[in-house]
């Protein structure tokens, strides 16, 4: 029961993915890393389901997925102008993440375990980037890169993606810290926490679907 609900809710990411396919020729390149992330997320959910059903571990594909997710979110935040004045910081973060991932999963040989250090670090930084994105959006108007003119903030895709990221990754951060300290030893506790996480995942996936729906079309001409 738990697995089916988790899978079903996890697959809700495909709503955003489907909307992205329908609107693929209208979607701005700035938002493309996020769309890719949505699709990789959807594929990972399907893969995890089949691996689980056939009695295999899902940790390898999930460990690879978190690296892809982290990098794609980072590139998305770069595209919307978070690193506008600090491009060197983007280089440091991406190098640091890839280095940390390799160190934890390959050098320490934890490919078959949860890569806690990497997950804690990237969740934490994505939350900070999401906060920066929202503040920049509200106070400095970063609509320009994706050309949205909507005055309703709740119809702004950048705002929705940032809010979704903050909510999901804040909870994920807390969960990863708990797991890091071995609080997942109790199966009941672990399942209860995952139960909350899958509901948050569902809500965030629906928010992402709205974000993709409200991504403005590419500008067909240049105003001089």
């Amino acid at each position, binding site marked *: 029961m738990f697995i089916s609900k988790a899978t079903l809710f996890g697959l809700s990411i495909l709503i955003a993915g489907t909307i992205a396919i329908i609107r693929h020729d209208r979607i701005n390149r700035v938002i493309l890393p996020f769309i890719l992330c949505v699709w990789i997320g959807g594929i990972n959910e399907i893969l995890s389901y089949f691996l689980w059903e056939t009695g295999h571990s899902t940790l390898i594909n999930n460990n690879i997925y978190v690296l892809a997710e982290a990098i794609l979110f980072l590139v998305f935040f770069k595209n919307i102008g978070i690193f506008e004045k600090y491009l060197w910081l983007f280089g440091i973060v991406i190098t640091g993440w890839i280095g940390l991932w390799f160190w934890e999963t390959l050098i320490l040989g934890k490919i078959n375990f949860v890569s806690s250090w990497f997950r804690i670090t990237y969740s934490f930084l994505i939350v900070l980037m999401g906060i920066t994105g929202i*503040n920049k959006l509200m*106070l*400095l108007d970063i609509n320009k890169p994706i050309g949205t003119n909507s005055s309703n903030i709740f119809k702004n895709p950048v705002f929705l993606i940032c809010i979704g990221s903050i909510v999901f990754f804040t909870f994920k951060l807390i969960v990863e810290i708990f797991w890091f*300290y071995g609080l997942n030893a109790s199966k009941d506790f672990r399942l209860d926490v995952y139960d909350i996480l899958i509901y948050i995942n569902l809500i965030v996936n629906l928010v992402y679907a709205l974000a993709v729906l409200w991504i403005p079309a590419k500008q067909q001409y240049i105003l001089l």
Partner: protein
Amino acid sequence: MDSRETTIYIAIVVACIMIGFIILYFFISIIRHQRQNLALRKKNILQEIAGLEKERARIASDFHDELGPLLSAVKMRINSFELPDAEDREELEKTNNLIDDVIKRIRQISYNLMPSTLLKKGLVKALMEYVDFLNSSTHIQFTFIHQEDCIINEEKSINIYRIVQEIIHNSVKHAAATAIRIELKKQGNKIHLSVMDNGIGFDYNKVMAVNTGIGLKSLGNRAQMTGGKMFLKSSENNGTNYLFEIPI
């Protein structure tokens, strides 16, 4: 606490620290972006004002240097006609007067746009000229008290001159003032400009709420542009006193 409880305790503390840091970052980020936003807006306003002044100077120069001489040439040409008929000569005289009026008006517009005295002789002389002009052309009594050593750079002079123009425009148009007193003093490394009128005054909050206070905002922007501060004292039926503190 046993070891299990200690682990739970540490996990909760670490999670709280992380969340605390996120909240702190949120506030720091808001403040930082708010400051950036203000700086950006200020920069835009300053650029807008600088562009406006440049454009005014260009138009004033075009009026003064091109239209003025052209009209003078027209006047000379029509005066070169020898007209035997008295009626025609009378018409010519009327045309001459009209051309004189146009030349005078062009000079006046050009002067309002960018007073040549301001650029050539400085702020004090320009304000003296302006006050003389106002005294001779309006029924309001203008007084200008100044120190001769109020020397300030051209950019700031233009802004101070515009501030005075804007205040006088407000006082004449809205305050029904009968007397306006302008004071320009140097104190230390600051210029103090004070403009007082005996008009009906106003409630600052009401003005800003009702008609968006464009004139007052413009004064504030000009003061900002000079790097100075603006102070305002006004209440209904008690006149208005504007005070500007501008660094030299």
